[in-house]
């Protein structure tokens, strides 16, 4: 029995650890999608963040500064996405795909030049809490940037639900025509939402690189950006749901890694595909509920005065 608990604790720890990078990005994508932009370039933001974090850490010798560099990279991708799809109205999906291809190509191309000794931010266990059985290591023994989530999550909630910016962003996601008539600068809010997403996703990728792994491997995000999109959808476009989705998908990943060691021969492919299947399931089953469809204008570009 204690054995099982210990194992459960280990898996939990693994799950939480794996879901932290997802959680950062999910906060960002949540804000972006509430503003009506279905942002596909999260993958590029995360991967760019990972690469730049390692590059920055190598350059400055400080992984913490690498984190900042990662945020900047995410912002840069977001700027490109915003420019092409909201200032110029090129199809946002294709812009996102192109940016992902670009970032993947560029970072893989330059991967060798940032190969260096591993640098990671410090592991900071919370005193006393980290020693709790089962839950302790899982929840309270992380590298310090993970604890930023404790602040960022309520901040994101407050931003979207309690500020005027958030009200306007939500209006823009539900009904941009009405928001425009009310004097809200629609595309500007959407661009700003994208920037928030870029910063947070870049942070997520950076955490993956200088938090978890310590170096950069080509395509190290391996589709996590798309996982994040699935998490937001699975969570019904609520903050709680998105974070729950991240945790769930992190758990799926942890299970996939742990089960063979435990002697179970479960098809890894099913576990890898599970996040996407779960998101599809959520969309299919809960299609009729309020909020399950997402913001009414999600993915619909806005131009004033179009008949």
């Amino acid at each position, binding site marked *: 029995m204690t054995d099982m608990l210990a194992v459960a604790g280990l898996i939990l720890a693994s799950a939480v650890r794996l879901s932290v990078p997802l959680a950062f990005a999910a906060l960002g994508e949540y804000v972006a999608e509430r503003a009506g932009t279905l942002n596909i370039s999260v993958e590029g933001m995360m991967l760019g963040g990972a690469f730049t974090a390692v590059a920055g850490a190598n350059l400055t010798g400080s992984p913490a500064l690498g984190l900042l560099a990662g945020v900047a990279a995410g912002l840069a991708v977001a700027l490109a996405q915003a420019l092409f799809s909201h200032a110029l109205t090129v199809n946002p999906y294709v812009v996102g795909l192109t940016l992902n291809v670009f970032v993947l190509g560029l970072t893989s191309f330059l991967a060798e030049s940032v190969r260096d000794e591993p640098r990671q931010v410090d592991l900071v266990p919370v005193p006393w809490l980290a020693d709790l059985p089962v839950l302790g290591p899982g929840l309270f023994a992380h590298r310090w940037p993970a604890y930023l989530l404790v602040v960022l999550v309520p901040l994101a909630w407050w931003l979207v639900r*309690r500020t005027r910016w958030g*009200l*306007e962003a*939500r*209006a823009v996601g*539900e*009904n941009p025509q*009405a928001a425009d008539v*009310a004097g809200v600068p629609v595309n500007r809010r959407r661009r700003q939402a994208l920037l928030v997403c870029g910063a947070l996703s870049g942070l997520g990728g950076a955490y993956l690189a200088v938090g978890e792994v310590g170096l950069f491997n080509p395509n190290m995000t391996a589709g996590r950006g798309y996982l994040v999109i699935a998490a937001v959808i699975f969570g019904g476009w609520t903050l709680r749901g998105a974070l729950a989705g991240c945790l769930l998908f992190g758990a799926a990943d942890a299970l996939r890694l742990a089960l063979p060691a435990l002697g179970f021969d479960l098809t890894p492919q099913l576990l890898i595909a599970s996040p996407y299947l779960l998101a599809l399931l959520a969309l299919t089953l809960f299609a009729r509920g309020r909020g399950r469809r997402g913001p009414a204008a999600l993915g619909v570009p806005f131009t004033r005065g179009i*008949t």
Partner: protein
Amino acid sequence: MRVPAVEMVGVTKRFGSVVACDRVSLSVREGEIHGLLGQNGAGKTTLMKILLGLVRPDAGRVLVRGHEVEIRDPRTAADLGIAMVQQHFSLVPAMRVWENVVLGAGGRLDRSAARGRIQEVARRYGLAVDPDARVEDLTTGERQRVEIVKCLWRDPALLILDEPTSVLTPAESRELFSVLRRVASHERRSVILISHKLDEIRHATDRVTVMRSGRVVARRATPGMDVADLAREMIGREPGTRAAAAAVGAMDAVVSPSPGEPERPGRTADADRGMEPGRPGPAAEPDHTGVFDRAATDRAEDLGRAGEPGPATRPRPAEPEEEPGDTLEFGRVADSGPAGDPGPAAVDEAEVLLRVRDAYATAPDGRPLLRGLSLHVRAGEILGIAGVEGNGQAALADLLSSLIELDAGVVEVCGRPVPTGRAGAMHRAGVGVVPEDRHRSGCVLDMSVAENLVLADVGRVAAGGLVRPRRLREHAARLIEEFEIVVTDPDAPLRRLSGGNQQKVVLARELSANPRVLVAAQPSRGLDVAAAEYVAERIRRAARDGIAVLLISSDLEEILALAHRVAVIHRGAIAGEMPRAEADVARLALLMGGRAA
């Protein structure tokens, strides 16, 4: 003389080769309700869009309290205290009333303060709103109240309303005008009321500016104004037919008792604004008798349309018989029904071509659209469906366009039931529809004119699964000629045509498919008088040819001008029905407002 609250001087705006506003000057005083009168397409909306920062003028100045300003975007306009009460696309349905009201207002977000202030504003002006309700749950009238609160929230110096009464019952309109009067006189704000209806102008405004074809053609003070004179200014000539008079909302100026006809009940001598719009008292009416006696030939010229093929080619077969019924003699009503049509007795024997029985339908969000609606239309008959917008007219038209599926009830065309909601089924059964919003469901703007003239019946110009260009062109040429559509290149996208010509394309296509039933929803909306007259005439002709016509309109005068029978739609069902001869504005108004007549 005090500085005007808002002044526009020499404002000009062009859209391509079309001049929407041509050196327009407008001056609105503090504390006044200023009417902006003109038919559709006169430039009123564009002018207001300039004031609101939605459109930048090519020339001219705008002054607010004497200071020249540049209104670059809606936010600037809002900062200057210019606000417009919107009709469509201005509330976010998923959000609550208080969130919608404070949207765009700037400053910190404070829910309780907002709710408190909303209730205060509502109380002060007599507008009942619930700050916590979700907009998607509100009726049209309630939404308009929210719009007004939203406007008053910003403490505007100038309030603009664009045709606000089209979605209101006559009683609600009266309420609205009194609210406006309170807003203007008690708070020294200014109000601009845009309308194409003389009655509204007469009952609600202090001064009026008349626009036509982008120019200001007249300015008057409302008390003591000459209605006929205004009507003439608005159109540019005498309103020659009943339809034309209907288009300018001058019907009640026309319909006064002729010798022999009993005095209408309820008419009083009051001519003040408190009266229901559409019911003039004799005291308010200056003497018009005998001013506009016309001979048939004069009328033919009058009805020539500027820039379009002349009236000579327009079919007017029964002209001599029509005349007595249709001549507009201000001060004398001379007709007993729509001109030139078979009398009600003949129609009663004809076959029922369209029957709707107990129709129930709901919108995707659960709102009921139709609640047990039943009606029938016979061959050769025009059934007019009157009613305040938002009572199911759109749903009825959508039903007959195969866009809505019924939860219960049947639709029968020529006696045979037609499946509802199935794409194209109504069309195949012989129902032609000229929809209310032609851009939404009537045509495809980015396809060519020739293609739009086919749309549902592409098989007619195709062979072997391929569209034959020659047949397509021939078909288009034939319709363009018959319906006198002004178009230089049939392969150009429909977008390039004027609104009136686009409507003609829709009409041509629907009529050329030889329908048994024709549904015309708000057919003359957005059209100038000439185009509106043409559409009215084609509708009459369709009826004469034995088609059952369902005319849906929120414009009472249009209905009274064309229909054999009038029914009133209210909250998704037919509230009452009567032959044209028994229909009068008072009874209809009651039914429209939901009370038994």
